[in-house]
């Protein structure tokens, strides 16, 4: 009997892994969203969590009208991109020379505004996505994976690949990397930091929006409060992935997602959070360049 139980446990485990990877994909996108702004500007954009939430609602509105899924994703991304650029102009740009607290709190101001906006437009009760969407499931033995879950993972991979392409192969991507490396030198080399930060914010907004639509597909509900919970976790994912590393985030997302799902099954929600943040702190202290390793960016004593 215990052997059967063991096998059953295995399948539950594998099923959880699938859930974990799906959740992790969303984390990856949000982590990249944070990391674009962090890496280039050193600022923690606290509005990203609410951009993510807003994207979810925008996507929901599209789907609820029976419109196709790709449109929902595009609308969500477009909407949040625009908002992100507004935030850059008002919350970041005038404050860019100040210690990082100031722009960070300014983005917080925007996140408050966005939350209030969302609650007023859509109400504070959870909204359900049409259940028919979630009927399609594919079975591989005793593991089933929903069509929506595949969509989440698939879209994530596409977006991350796109981002990697932009960052590594295009001129603007090179400029972004240059600024991330060293602002002063980049400026001297003629990189227009102002336009660049706008691009960084826009990309970050797009990713957050996409993540939002996708999380709606994963959980089938949206509430105005998904921003904060997921946002903080995404910060942890960003750190574990190595703050500015794209592939690190792609790896760390599913890793943390799986870890989360497993600790909930075997320990409960508080253990989950405790573990995730504990790992984040350990990485910060012991391996700040993230799980993928690589050069440390710590600067030595400058006199």
């Amino acid at each position, binding site marked *: 009997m215990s052997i059967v139980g063991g096998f059953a446990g295995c399948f539950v485990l594998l099923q959880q892994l699938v859930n974990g990877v799906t959740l992790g994909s969303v984390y990856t996108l949000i982590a990249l969203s944070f990391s674009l702004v962090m890496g280039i500007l050193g600022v923690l954009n606290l509005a990203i969590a609410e951009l993510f939430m807003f994207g979810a609602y925008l996507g929901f509105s599209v789907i609820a009208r029976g419109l196709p899924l790709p449109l929902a994703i595009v609308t969500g991304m477009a909407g949040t991109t625009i908002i992100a650029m507004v935030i850059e102009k008002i919350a970041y740009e005038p404050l860019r020379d100040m210690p990082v607290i100031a722009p960070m709190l300014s983005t917080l101001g925007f996140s*408050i505004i966005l939350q209030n906006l969302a609650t007023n437009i859509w109400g504070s009760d959870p909204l359900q996505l049409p259940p028919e969407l979630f009927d399609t499931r594919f079975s591989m033995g005793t593991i089933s994976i929903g069509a929506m879950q595949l969509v989440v993972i698939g879209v994530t991979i596409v977006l991350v690949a796109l981002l990697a392409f932009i960052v590594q192969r295009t001129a603007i991507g090179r400029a972004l990397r240059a600024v991330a490396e060293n602002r002063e030198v980049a400026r001297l080399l003629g990189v227009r930091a102002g336009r660049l930060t706008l691009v960084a914010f826009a990309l970050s907004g797009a990713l957050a929006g996409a993540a939002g639509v996708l999380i709606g597909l994963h959980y089938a509900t949206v509430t105005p409060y998904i921003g904060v919970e997921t946002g903080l976790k995404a910060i942890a994912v960003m750190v574990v992935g190595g703050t500015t590393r794209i592939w690190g985030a792609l790896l760390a997302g599913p890793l943390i997602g799986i870890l989360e799902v497993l600790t909930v099954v075997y320990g409960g929600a508080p253990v989950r959070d*405790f573990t995730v*943040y504990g790992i*984040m*702190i350990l990485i910060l202290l012991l391996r700040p360049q993230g799980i993928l390793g690589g050069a440390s960016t710590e600067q030595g004593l*400058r006199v």
Partner: protein
Amino acid sequence: MSTYYAALFADVGILLLGAISVYIILATGQLSLGNAGFMAIGAYVASYLTVKIGLPLMVALLLAAVVAGAVGVVIGFPALRLKGIYLAMATLGFGEMVRSFFLNLESMGGAGGFHGMAHVSPVYVWGWAGSILLLVTLLERSRVWLEMCAVHDDETVAGFIGLNTTVIKVSAFGFGAAVAAIAGGLFAHHHIYIEPGNFGFERSIDFVLAVILGGSTVAIGALVGAALLVFLPETLRFFADWRLAAFGVLLVLVLLVRRQGLLDRAMFMRSIFKARRA
């Protein structure tokens, strides 16, 4: 004073202490986004001591402060290795870890929360808040505070003039944690019911907001900031459903217009250092 306003008044006192806890640590150049964690430790330890052990509140608060202070010192050491936003993120993680720790702690109620504390009036809350504010204001005029400012402005050079930056930074964490713990203990005994959700990231951010808005270079700034944060939403009632958005707009505006916060150390410079000439 109606009970509603009395409660708000108490909230200002508690928020003031939380803000001061951030202020003390920030004075050495370290941004802590996890002081709600220290507040939680204070709340739960103090509540445990009064409810389950039967200690008088004052003793419970002091002991809670010591416990939290010790945790703060322990946190302070690894914190030395992190700078700026990375430290902020680590403290954020710490705050969340503490919250989930108490969520898991069934002996103190877990998610269901803890109650049984005896109620204290806003006056009692302000007895502590006012005293600690006074203490810190006095401390701001001391040599120790100058050393903290030096560490804040240029840690390396602070070392060159003979300051033990490790001791200064770690002590600041300990002291800040202790003050946050008192805020927590008072919160517990004023609201007579606590749950881990009271001590999340939003709380930590509230502390930081109060300091930054009110003035991050003087302790009095924390008072201004705390009063603003508690009373402003009240005065924004006019905006009804858009009250919070209005607050967000105001926050952005204040940051744009007056960067250092409302109050500023330079304003008080001369009065701070009235030297006694021989």
